[in-house]
């Protein structure tokens, strides 16, 4: 048993300069999961942020090494659960590349549409969560209204709303639902009408702008040296869209712009994501009427075996560059598998860009980095 004075001495971490060390998380409303930040404060000003990881580590990479090439794809849905389709696509693409499996056109187009829908759903959730971090509760519900339509589409076609597991090596698990096209078109129509609503609520808001403009500024050099990718790097003016650099599926035949902002602050990251949603809509509009007829899955062997060697495939998730690296010994399971998750690199800049700002700025910065903790921990 401690006596009381000892406990007080223990918990009050006052450093020599009156620093206050505060544990944000693993249970904290703004860390969206079990991220643990040890924040050193001087009054309201942040002196140091130290992220502690591992609270949701499930050794997914080790798990994947024990599963066959058909099975391991489904574990990857649980990493970045907001872009599970895109994770699945990356794994499927790697196996297809390694085994030279021919993917039917229909599957390619459907995959692209689903990936873009996933990206929109992820950004929608992010808008709501970020606004909540800044203290505005209402945009969350507006964002979820549209996200709900996407999850409904996913439910019809894939049978699941979050961890879809719809993509298999060679194509799709089964054909799309008959109402897929009508539902996607209805969604596109509604999205275009309603996107202005929460843009009005958030983008134009003077408080929101003053909270995010000039906050958490990340320079292009820092973005590159920390390995940032996705909207975080693009907001700093780094061109890094995998859909443009290394097109996969049907991305080489659609027109879209890579959204790049140069300010590098939280507001730029916000603008990039909002504009990216509109680009995703543009991609979907080009493809939805042109889904080719035919097979939805290519011919594959029952037991998949990768040749001996090293394989790497990268895709663009909603958070940035997601990479799968597999070392194969020629067996039915990978010898070693490594995922390059965008969230991990994006989190690593947090201390660099939030140091010296206020606690409120930390929330704005962390919110716009769009962290998904299971993606970082794996």
């Amino acid at each position, binding site marked *: 048993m401690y006596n009381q004075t000892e406990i007080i001495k223990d918990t009050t971490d006052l450093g020599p300069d009156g620093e206050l060390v505060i544990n944000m998380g693993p249970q904290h*409303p703004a860390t969206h999961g079990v991220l643990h930040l040890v924040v050193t404060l001087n009054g309201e000003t942040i002196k140091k942020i130290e992220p502690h990881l591992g609270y949701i580590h499930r050794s997914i990479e080790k798990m994947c090494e024990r599963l066959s090439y058909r099975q391991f794809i489904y574990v990857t849905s649980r990493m970045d659960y907001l872009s599970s389709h895109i994770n699945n696509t990356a794994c499927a693409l790697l196996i297809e590349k390694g085994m030279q499996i021919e993917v039917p056109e229909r599957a390619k187009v459907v995959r692209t549409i689903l990936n873009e829908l996933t990206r929109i759903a992820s950004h929608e959730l992010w808008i709501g969560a970020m606004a909540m*971090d800044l*203290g505005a509760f*209402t945009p969350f*519900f*507006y964002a979820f209204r549209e996200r709900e339509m996407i999850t409904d589409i996913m439910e019809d076609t894939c049978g699941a709303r979050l961890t879809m597991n719809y993509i298999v090596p060679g194509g799709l698990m089964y054909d799309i639902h008959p109402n897929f096209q009508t539902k996607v078109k209805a969604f596109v129509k509604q999205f275009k009408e309603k996107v202005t609503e929460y843009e009005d609520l958030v983008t134009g808001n003077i*408080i929101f702008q003053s909270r995010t403009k000039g906050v958490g500024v990340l320079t292009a050099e820092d973005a590159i040296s920390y390995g940032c990718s996705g909207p975080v790097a693009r907001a700093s003016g780094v061109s890094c869209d995998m859909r443009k650099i290394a097109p996969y599926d049907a991305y080489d035949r659609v027109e879209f712009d890579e959204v790049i902002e140069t300010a590098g602050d939280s507001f730029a990251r916000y603008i990039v994501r909002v504009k990216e949603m509109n680009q995703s809509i543009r991609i979907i509009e080009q493809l939805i009427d042109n889904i080719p007829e035919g097979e939805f899955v290519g011919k594959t062997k029952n037991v998949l075996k990768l040749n001996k060697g090293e394989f790497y495939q990268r895709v663009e998730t909603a958070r940035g560059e997601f990479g799968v690296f597999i070392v194969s010994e020629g067996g039915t399971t990978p010898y070693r598998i490594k995922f390059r998750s965008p969230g991990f690199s994006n989190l690593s800049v947090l201390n660099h860009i939030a140091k010296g700002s*206020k606690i409120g700025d930390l929330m704005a910065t962390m919110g716009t980095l769009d962290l998904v903790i299971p993606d970082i921990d794996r």
Partner: protein
Amino acid sequence: MLSLESITKTTQDWLFAKFSPEIALTIECVIVILLCITLFAVLGLVLVLLERKVAARIQIRLGPNRVGPGGIFQTAADTLKLIMKEGLTPDSADKFLFNLAPFIVMMVAMLLLAPIAFAKNFQIWDINIGVLYISAVSSLSVIGILMAGWASNNKYSLLGAMRSGAQIVSYELSAGFAVLTIVVLTGSLRISDIVASQENGWWLFKGHIPVIIAFVLYIIAVTAETNRAPFDLAEAESELTAGFHTEYSGMKFALFFLAEYINIFIVCAIGATLFLGGWMPLHIGHWDGFNHIMDYIPSSVWFMGKTFFLIFVIMWFRWTFPRLRVDQLLNLEWKYLLPISLFNLLLVTVIAIMGWHF
């Protein structure tokens, strides 16, 4: 029917006829205390439900709709839950101050009820320095909040209390100056005089643009003073979990929660009294017929209508705006609101001296 004037008058006359003045006064005190407590309970229930319904309406959802018709008993059920809950006191907390803090916050809210005129001749204490009393007492609640934050021995609580202290002390000034504009125009600190001066038109309409500016400043300042979004930095859910009341649970938390809503009611009631004519009906110039019809609406309905309109506005703020940062909050007050309100007060003084108002 709903005019409360006759009720108070009859009770008073009857009591003073039956008993000696001391005993009559004591009985009146007891009645008033009972009425206040009842009002608190009812206001708590109504305002919490109202907030949840307003929030739901703004956020395209339904809100509470399971307990009772339209969810009207939801707050009662929640209160029951909070009563049943164990009131934890952290081991390392300063137990005396920790347990005292919610009562101080609550007591301040209760004291503020005294000079409010709920209806014609329905007022607990028509003190001759009413407005000054309100400004003085309302700044006491920060003591309770600081006490709660300090005694919890929790870093989040401490940060929240620190923010709250800075915030309430700053915004008190703007609120005070906004109130002063009306005092300058009326020439009296007494609430009943202020209401009486608005018989032929509310100050908001009579006082030209300066009073409208003062009204806007007042609404901003009291939103900050009651720790409501976009100025809810003391609680700042996403930053400090729950700020100064992080460690409170059960009924002690409920007292903080209730005090917040009572404070909203009080500041809105004061706003309605000063700027919107209190219980005075809406009168427009020489439209005698219209004015006559308006007189038929009881004064208590007028008062509650205006107060609840202002409450709705403050709730509307909360569900629309993001939160400000702490330095922006203080900048807003010291660099913008305070100079504006000082200049505005000067302007109003000139208007009052020259007699330019209607």
